């Protein structure tokens, strides 16, 4: 049986990297006594798939991982058992059963929404809302993406589905988070700062991932994003 677990990661836990979070959950699942399925072979490992890696320093209330279990009483029991063995800063928000044919969390990811909130004492941007509008109104937002292997020119605008400012003055955005076209919220922020001609240190904003989405639109149609937890 395939199970999808949604969790939040915040506070001091934002300093724990992606691989260490996987290790954390492997041990947590053992502490919780969940009847997880193991792979075959000489060194069996838990069948587990994480959705989209979260950068160190970023908080989230929309993280996902899928596991396969051999047996369970109810999704509520799994949620409770996991929450009993969590630490401060990690909380299991929901546990759902996936349809057998569902793609795993990692393959399903299409987009993610983020909130960039100014930290206390950080430099505010005047007329932020107008500036964000003007920024998004540009024809294209060229960005030079440097990876270990290559340097590619990309147009960020293609991958920014929504961007705006909420009532608290935080920047909200919905961007591509798929494995092929992932956009980092910090990169968008960096380009925005360039656009308004301001030098703002990246760490003056706390980034939070709000939700991770999959796209249920048919090929060629407009995107239809739904949270990963709503599959099935």
């Amino acid at each position, binding site marked *: 049986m395939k199970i999808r677990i949604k969790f939040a990661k915040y506070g*001091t836990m934002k300093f*724990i990297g992606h691989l260490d979070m996987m290790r954390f959950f492997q*041990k947590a*699942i*053992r*502490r919780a*006594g969940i009847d997880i399925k193991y792979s075959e072979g000489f060194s069996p490992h838990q069948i587990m798939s994480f959705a989209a890696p979260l950068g160190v320093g970023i908080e989230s209330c929309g993280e996902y991982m899928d596991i396969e279990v051999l047996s369970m009483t109810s999704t509520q029991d799994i949620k409770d058992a996991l929450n009993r063995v969590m630490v*401060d*800063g990690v909380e299991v928000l929901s546990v759902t059963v996936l349809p057998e044919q569902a793609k795993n969390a990692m393959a399903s990811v299409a987009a993610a929404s983020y909130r960039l909130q100014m930290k206390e004492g950080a430099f505010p941007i005047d007329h932020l809302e107008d500036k964000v509008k003007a920024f998004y109104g540009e024809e294209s937002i060229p960005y030079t993406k440097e990876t270990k292997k290559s340097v590619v020119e990309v147009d960020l605008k293609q991958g920014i589905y929504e961007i705006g400012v909420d009532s608290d003055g935080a920047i909200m955005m919905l961007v591509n988070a798929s494995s092929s076209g992932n956009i980092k919220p910090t990169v968008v922020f960096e380009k925005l700062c360039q656009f308004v001609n301001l030098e703002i240190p990246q760490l003056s904003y706390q980034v939070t991932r709000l939700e991770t989405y999959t796209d249920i639109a048919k090929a060629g149609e407009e995107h239809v994003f739904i949270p990963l937890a709503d599959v099935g």
Partner: protein
Amino acid sequence: MRKLALNDDILMQVEKPARYIGNEVNSVIKDKTQVAVRFAMCFPDVYEIGMSHLGIQIIYSMLNEWEDVWCERVYSPWVDLDKIMREKHIPLFGLESQEPVKDMDFLGITIQYEMCYTNILQVLDLAQIPLLAAERGEGMPIVIGGGPCTYNPEPIADFFDLFYIGEGETQYRKLFDWYIENRAKGGTREDFLRGAAKIPGIYVPQFYEELYNEDGTVKGRRKQYDDIPDTILKEIVMDVTDAHYPLKPVVPFIKVTQDRVVLEIQRGCIRGCRFCQAGQLYRPVRERNVDKLKSYAVQMLKNTGHEEISLSSLSSSDYSHLDELLDFLIEDCSQKHTNISLPSLRIDAFSLDVMSKVQDVKKSSLTFAPEAGSQRLRDVINKGLTEEVILKGAALAFEGGWTRVKLYFMLGLPTETEEDIKGIGDLSNKIAATFFDTVPKDKRVNGKVQIVTSTSFFIPKPFTPFQWATMCTKEEFLEKAYQTKQGIMEQLNQKSIKYNWHEADVSVLEGVFARGDRKISQVILEAYKRGCIFDAWSEYFHNDVWMQCFEDCGVDIGFYTTRERPDDERFPWDFIDCGVTKEFLLREWKKAQDETVSSNCKVQCQGCGANRFGGGICYENR
């Protein structure tokens, strides 16, 4: 949410911020207003090393079980954070409360190897505690040293308010009760230390002066008060089965060296290898009850979620219920997808059978520690391992499918000759030849065998029969490593043998610290002031700085390393009584020179003196 001692900017700058945030599973948070004693327990090396240490987990768990005590953990900030903390004057903090160590009542530092001595000063300095005990005023934490290196505490005596000699389980309650009592009646720091000096196992170095002869050797000791002891007898837990054990060890977020459940099956070792300090310090051997161990294993795996369990002891094969314990673990662990790691096992049919059940034979390697290349020298060091046994074990292993063997030797052992060194290559070659004789051509998986031969340099340690021995110079060590390499190159099967050796200059320094006296502390302090920290990490070890410090302090390295010590010399550590008598050690030193072996404790008592503790192997039916 706890407020962290370091802000986001700093944590995002440093490597592995998880080293500094605490919050791990099974870490203990208490209300500081509800405790009487706050204790910072420190391992003076980086988090991943310190978190792997069983002793700290035992003390941490035991102290936190007491309602009126809060024990937190402290490790050496890595060099990147070290620099930032100095620049910004951020005081070193406990991982749990994230509050400054200097505001706590005690700072306990475990000292597991000599090369961490400058890190002790780093920890004190970053904590904003004066480096010298004599300069600490009221309100500063009491700085305690413990662990194997404190059996010769003199080289670091100036930095500690007190040392706890021996096993940590026994005297902390008494020490804390006295601390609370002294504070309640308005007593001073000095009052506390005076009282503490009378608690068994506690040594307060500032109350004693080391006196020297004209030639620099120790003449004697003068104590400041009549009512404090002349000798300090080590503390020991006789009932290890009912001693405290950490059933909920702290589980780190990041991968550490020992990322598994550690089950200590016994303390001490029956073998009596003459170079080995642990083998003498932890006498007599005391075994934990096997049923208790089974129950601990199950609970600890459940409480941590670890995927692996490891047995810990100096010589696991000597544990009398090993078969039963391993059978249980194999049965229990296979259901739970748990790995078993088996260090320090003697290679024989039984252990190979067990290993083939718990490891991937193709991927794992077997380890032999002959320690010396010839039977003659193995007799000198009392290592009861013969060539026949090694070759037989190797043949069995090769038949079982193993193709990788690791061999450990020491260079520079007392009485060593060129023949003995040549023996290292010869033995490595014979093991390779055994593979080709045992495994037919069509059954050789990769067609070959891999022998990795490693040598370390012998360092005489206090409380061993070799405490009288001379140590080699750096040049002699390097010459011996060169000879070993040549010896291996000459072998028929040299292509199957890879040779590794240690760096020699660190070994020389370790030799000075191991048998040093109080005069060494000024050199350590000076080296620290000139920037030496993390000396155990080769990339941060600056031998040239150290050599200059010895010269500038007027301390002669040869006095501590290469000097011949007469049988009746008074050693700096003689005032500590580890249970084993100096007469026994001298007897063993003479037997070593006669190339005579001594039986192990199970076969025949050698009268080492440890039977005075009234238990363990000394009183069991042999």
